[in-house]
Every structure is written in structure tokens, then in C-alpha cells.
């Protein structure tokens, strides 16, 4: 009788162990894509230039990342998690490029103003013709 009970307990333990191992091994997860998107977003979000110059773009990236995280914790299809991770990563790249673009626009505006001032100064001094300006390519 006791031996019977022990045998049943052992069998149950074996079943539970098998299920646990299976549970650990199964679900293929889009962890790499999500991990990469998360790292890229965090680095961009920590950049003061991006915070200041591309806050809207950063917000869009965060929204996609949140979708990817939520899908991952809801055990959604890995392909779906990978898709939203891709969107988050691209939106992060867009935020970085946009910050760079806005910085370049500010630099251009400053240089342009300086150029106009100097041309005026040269004109007032008169004399030789002004050197040709070649920088009117923006807008």
C-alpha cells in the first residue's frame, strides 16, 4: 500500500518535471529583436540632443516599443513581437536623424546670418567685388 503511494508520487513528480522542462524550452521568443530595439531606444532617449530636438519622434518610437513589450509579455507570436521591435528601432533611428537634422538647420541659420553680416560689412567698405557666395542651397 505504501509502496503504491510512493510509486504514484514519483510518477506525478516525473510528470511535473517533464512539463516544466517542456515549458522552459518551447516558446521561441523574438527576444533578440526586442532587446536590440530596447537598447537603441534607451540610448536615444538618454541623449539630451534628441530629447530637445526630436521629442515627438522619440515619443513615436517609445509607443512602438511599448507595443512590442506588451505583445512579448502577452506571449504573442514572435513574428509580431519582431515586427513591432522593427518599427520601434526604425522610429528610434528617425528620431536620431531628425535631431541631427535640426542641429544642422540651426548651424546653417547661424552661419548664414554671419555670412550676410560680413557681406554687408564688406560692401560698406567698398572696393573690390565681393567673393561669390556659394551656400544658398538650403531651401
Amino acid at each position, binding site marked *: 500500500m505504501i509502496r503504491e503511494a510512493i510509486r504514484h508520487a514519483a510518477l506525478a513528480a516525473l510528470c511535473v518535471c517533464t512539463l516544466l522542462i517542456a515549458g522552459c524550452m518551447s516558446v521561441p521568443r523574438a527576444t533578440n529583436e526586442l532587446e536590440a530595439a530596447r537598447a537603441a531606444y534607451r540610448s536615444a532617449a538618454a541623449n539630451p540632443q534628441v530629447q530637445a530636438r526630436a521629442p515627438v519622434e522619440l515619443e513615436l518610437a517609445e509607443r512602438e516599443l511599448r507595443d512590442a513589450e506588451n505583445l512579448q509579455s502577452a506571449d504573442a507570436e514572435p513574428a509580431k513581437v519582431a*515586427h513591432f521591435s*522593427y*518599427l520601434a528601432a*526604425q*522610429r528610434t*533611428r*528617425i528620431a536620431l*536623424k*531628425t535631431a*541631427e*537634422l535640426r542641429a*544642422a*538647420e540651426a*548651424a*546653417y541659420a547661424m*552661419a*548664414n546670418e*554671419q*555670412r550676410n553680416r*560680413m*557681406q554687408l*560689412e*564688406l560692401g560698406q*567698405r567698398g*572696393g*573690390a567685388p*565681393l*567673393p561669390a*557666395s*556659394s*551656400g544658398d*542651397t*538650403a531651401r
Partner: protein
Amino acid sequence: MPYAACKACTDLSDLQRVAAIVLALGLAACSSMPRPTEQIDAARAAVSKAEPVVIQDGAMELRVAQYKLARADQEAQRGDYANARIYAEQAQVDADYARAIAENARVQRAAADANQSVRRLQDELDRRAK
């Protein structure tokens, strides 16, 4: 009553049961995933907006966006709305990224040109000051 339902089940042939399940799954898929018209339109708009801006920088990213937009159209035509939506959403961000790359390159060049002019003018001013 439950017995009657079960009886009906067992009376169906295997083929009929499989057909019923496939039909149910198909209907479920159709009702949960509508045609992603909005996403495809948004992707097309983003690609059209990028095309005149992208000349050299961002050209590769734009080609990827154009390819994915074409795939989105194809998948939608075949009725695979889930894949069509994925391609459309990716095409949109790829096109936006291509445009950001191109605009950034253009303004960087303009800023470099303006700075060069400033240096030339400074030289000229220095020369005349002598």
C-alpha cells in the same frame, strides 16, 4: 441535450468536421483582420513624400520601402491582410527614415557651404583691414 449534440458530432464524417473547422478559422481570420487600407495609404504617402527628396543619401532605405509597399499591395490582393499590414507599416517607417537621411544630408551640406563662405569673407575682411 448534450448527448444529442455529441451524437451529431460523431455522426459527421471526418471530412465534414475538418471542413467545418477550416471554415470557422477562415471566418475568424477574416473578421479579425480587415483589409489594411489605411496602413497601405499611409505607406504610399510616405514613399511619395520621400521620392523627390532622396537623391543619393537614403537611396537604399527608399528602395527597401518601395519594395515593401509593393509587397503590401501584393499580399492585400491575395487576401493575406495580416502580412499586407506588416509590409505596409514597415514601408512607412522605412520611407520616413529615408527622407530623414536625405534631408539631413542636404542641410549638412548647406551648413558646410555657408561656413566656408564665412571663412572666405573673413579672409577678405582681414586682407582689407591691413
